[in-house]
C-alpha cells in the first residue's frame, strides 16, 4: 500500500507508460518545464527530457491535430488540453479527424492517441473554466471516453487508455487532484470498459462517474442511517459503456437515479436514463430520475457555482423522495 494523490497517480501512470513504451510522449501547454497547470506532469521532464514532454505554444487545434498525425505515424501521443472548456477550439481535429479516420479510410489505420483534460466546478474559475463537457465527447462516434473517480482509477484507466487502438478522451476532475488514498497499484481493478460497484444496496441504484461518485457515496451513507440502501455504480468509462453491470442491479432494486455534473438536458445522464428506462422497463417501480447540472453557464460567484451542480444533499433528498 502507498499513499498517493489522484494527481500523483496520473503522473505515475504517464511515467510508467513512458518507461515501457518509447513511442509514448506528452505534448501540451506547460506540460514540461512547468509540470502541468495542475501539476500532473511535474518532474517528468527531468527523467524523459523535453522531447517527450513537449511544451507547445498556445495552439490547441494544432496540438490535437499534431497528436492525430503522430498517432497515425506510429507514436502514442498524450495530448494535454489544459481545460476541457477549450475543447471547442480542437473540435474539428478531435471530432472530424481523430474520431473518423479509421472509419472513413475503411479501417486502414487507427488513431491511438490520448487527449488528457480536466473539467468540473469547484474553483470559482468562472464560465469558461468550469464546465463538464463529457457529453460533447460521448456524442461523437469514434471516441472512447474515460473519466476516473478514484486514485487507483486515475492510474489504471490512464495506463489502459495508453493501450487502446483508438482515440481516448480522458477527463479528470479539477476538484479531485488533491484527493489522497491508500492504494495498492498491483491490486486488481475492473478491466477497461467495466464499471465498478462502489457500494451495494437493494433499494435504489445510483449510477454516476467522476466527482459525483463521491457525492453519491456520501449521500448513500446518509441514507443508510435512515434505512435506505443505495447501490453506487462508478461507470469509469462512458465509452465503452458497461450496461451489463447496471442492468441486474436495476432489475433487482427496481429504482435508478443517474447523477452527473454536466447540464441535464441532452447530457450523459439523459442518455443513461433513457437506456435504463428502455431496457429495464419491466422492472422499474418508479421513473428513472436524473440529478444533474443546471442548464446554465457556471458563475464565478461561489454561491451560484455551488448551486449549479448536484450536491450530496440534493442526491440524498431526491433518493429519499424516490424511495418513500
Amino acid at each position: 500500500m502507498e499513499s498517493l494523490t489522484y494527481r500523483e497517480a496520473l503522473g505515475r501512470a504517464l511515467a510508467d507508460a513512458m518507461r515501457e513504451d518509447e513511442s509514448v510522449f506528452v505534448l501540451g501547454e506547460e506540460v514540461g518545464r512547468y509540470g502541468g497547470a495542475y501539476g500532473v506532469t511535474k518532474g517528468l521532464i527531468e527523467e524523459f527530457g523535453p522531447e517527450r514532454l513537449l511544451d507547445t505554444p498556445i495552439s490547441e487545434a494544432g496540438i490535437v491535430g499534431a497528436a492525430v498525425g503522430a498517432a497515425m505515424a506510429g507514436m502514442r501521443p498524450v495530448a494535454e488540453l489544459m481545460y476541457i472548456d477549450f475543447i471547442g477550439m480542437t473540435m474539428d481535429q478531435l471530432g472530424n479527424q481523430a474520431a473518423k479516420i479509421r472509419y472513413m479510410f475503411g479501417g486502414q489505420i487507427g488513431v491511438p492517441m490520448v487527449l488528457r483534460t480536466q473539467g468540473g466546478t469547484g474553483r470559482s474559475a468562472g464560465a469558461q473554466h468550469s464546465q463538464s463537457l463529457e457529453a460533447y465527447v460521448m456524442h461523437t462516434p469514434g471516441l472512447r471516453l474515460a473519466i476516473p473517480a478514484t486514485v487507483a482509477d486515475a492510474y489504471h484507466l490512464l495506463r489502459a487508455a495508453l493501450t487502446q487502438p483508438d482515440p481516448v478522451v480522458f477527463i479528470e476532475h479539477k476538484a479531485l487532484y488533491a484527493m489522497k488514498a491508500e492504494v495498492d497499484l498491483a491490486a486488481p481493478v475492473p478491466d477497461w470498459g467495466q464499471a465498478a460497484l462502489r457500494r451495494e444496496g437493494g433499494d435504489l441504484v445510483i449510477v454516476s462517474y467522476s466527482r459525483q461518485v463521491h457525492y453519491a457515496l456520501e449521500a448513500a451513507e446518509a441514507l443508510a442511517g435512515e434505512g435506505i440502501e443505495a447501490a453506487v455504480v462508478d461507470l469509469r468509462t462512458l465509452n465503452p459503456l458497461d450496461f451489463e453491470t447496471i442492468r441486474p442491479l436495476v432489475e433487482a432494486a427496481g429504482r435508478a437515479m443517474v447523477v452527473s455534473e454536466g447540464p441535464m438536458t441532452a447530457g450523459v445522464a439523459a442518455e443513461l436514463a433513457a437506456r435504463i428506462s428502455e431496457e429495464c422497463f419491466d422492472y422499474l417501480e418508479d421513473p428513472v430520475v436524473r440529478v444533474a447540472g443546471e442548464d446554465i453557464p457556471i458563475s464565478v460567484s461561489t454561491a451560484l457555482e455551488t448551486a449549479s451542480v448536484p450536491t450530496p444533499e440534493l442526491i440524498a433528498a431526491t433518493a429519499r423522495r424516490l424511495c418513500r
Partner: protein
Amino acid sequence: MTRDNNGLGDLFREMLRIRIFEERVGELFVRGESAGSMLHLSIGEESAAVGVCSAMKDGDTFTTHHRGHGIFLARGANPDRMMAEIAGKETGYCGGKGGSMHIADMGLGHLGANAIVGGGIPAVVGAALAAKRQGTGAISVAFFGDGAMQQGILYEAMNMAALWDLPAVFVCINNQWGMGTRIDQATKSTDLHVRAKAFGLKAETVDGLDVREVQGAATRILDAARVGRPGFLAVDCYRFYGHARKDKSPYRDETEEAEGRKRDPVAFARAALTESGKAEAELADMEAAIAAEMDASIDYAIGSDEPPLEAMFRDVFAPGEPEPEPVAARLDRVLARE
C-alpha cells in the same frame, strides 16, 4: 494638470491607479475575499493600457484578454464595481457572474474580457464591420497577450480586417511570458508586428517603458484605423509577477526578473515628472488619494452581497424569454407522482 509635460501627469495618474488597483486585487485574494485565485495582475503593463486607451475615443469598443483590469480602468471603469465583480458580488459589473476574467460594460464600450486565449479577438472584426456599416466613426480594439499570437483565430481576424478595410486594431501586450513559457519558447518569429504587416495591416512594435511612446505609436495606428486602415501594435513590457495570484514563477531566472522589473513604466513616468519639476509633495498627494480610492473599492466589494440564488437562471436568455427550468422543478414534477 492636463497640459503639464505634454499630459504626462495624467498618463502617470492613470497608470498609478492601475498599479494600486492591482495591488489591492492581490490584497483581496490574501484576505480570502476574491472569487477564486484566477486573478491575473497587469503590474508592469500599465503603459500599454494607458498609452493605447488614451488614443481611443468615446464610442470606440474593445475586448480584452484575462489580464484586462488595467485596460478597463484606463477606459474609465469604476474601481468599486470592478473589485466587486472580482469578489463575485452582486454589485459587480456583471452581477458576480463573470469575475476577474469576464468583466464587461457595454456603456463604456467594453465588449468583454475573456478567459479563452484569443477568444475575444474576432469580435472586434465584427464590431468594426458594424461601425463601418453604421457610419459611427468608431474603431474597435482587441487587447491580448503574446500567447495569443500563436492562436490561429488571430490570423483569420487580421486577414478579414485587412480584406474589408475595417476600423479594427489588434494590440498585443507582449509581457514576454505566457504562464511558464517565454515568448522565444513559443515561437521563432518573435518580431511580432511583422506578421501583421504580411496581412496588410499598419503595424508597429513599441517599447512600453515610456508611456508617451506608447501613446504616440497608438495614436498613429488608431488614427489610421479610423480612416479604414486596420492596424496592429505590439507593446513590449514585462510581467512583473506570477501568471496568476498563486504562481511564484519558479521557472524564471531571478536576474531576468530583476532586470525585467527595472523596466517599470510607472517609476519611469514618475522620475520624468520629478525631473520636469513636479513637486514631490504633489505626487505624494496624488498617491495618497489613489490609495484611498482603491482601499474604498475593497471595502465596497467586501460589503456587497453575493448574488441571490434567483439570479442563477436569469440572463441565460433575454429578459422575458423562457428561462431554463431548474432541476429542482423538474424533480418536483417527477417525484410528485404517486
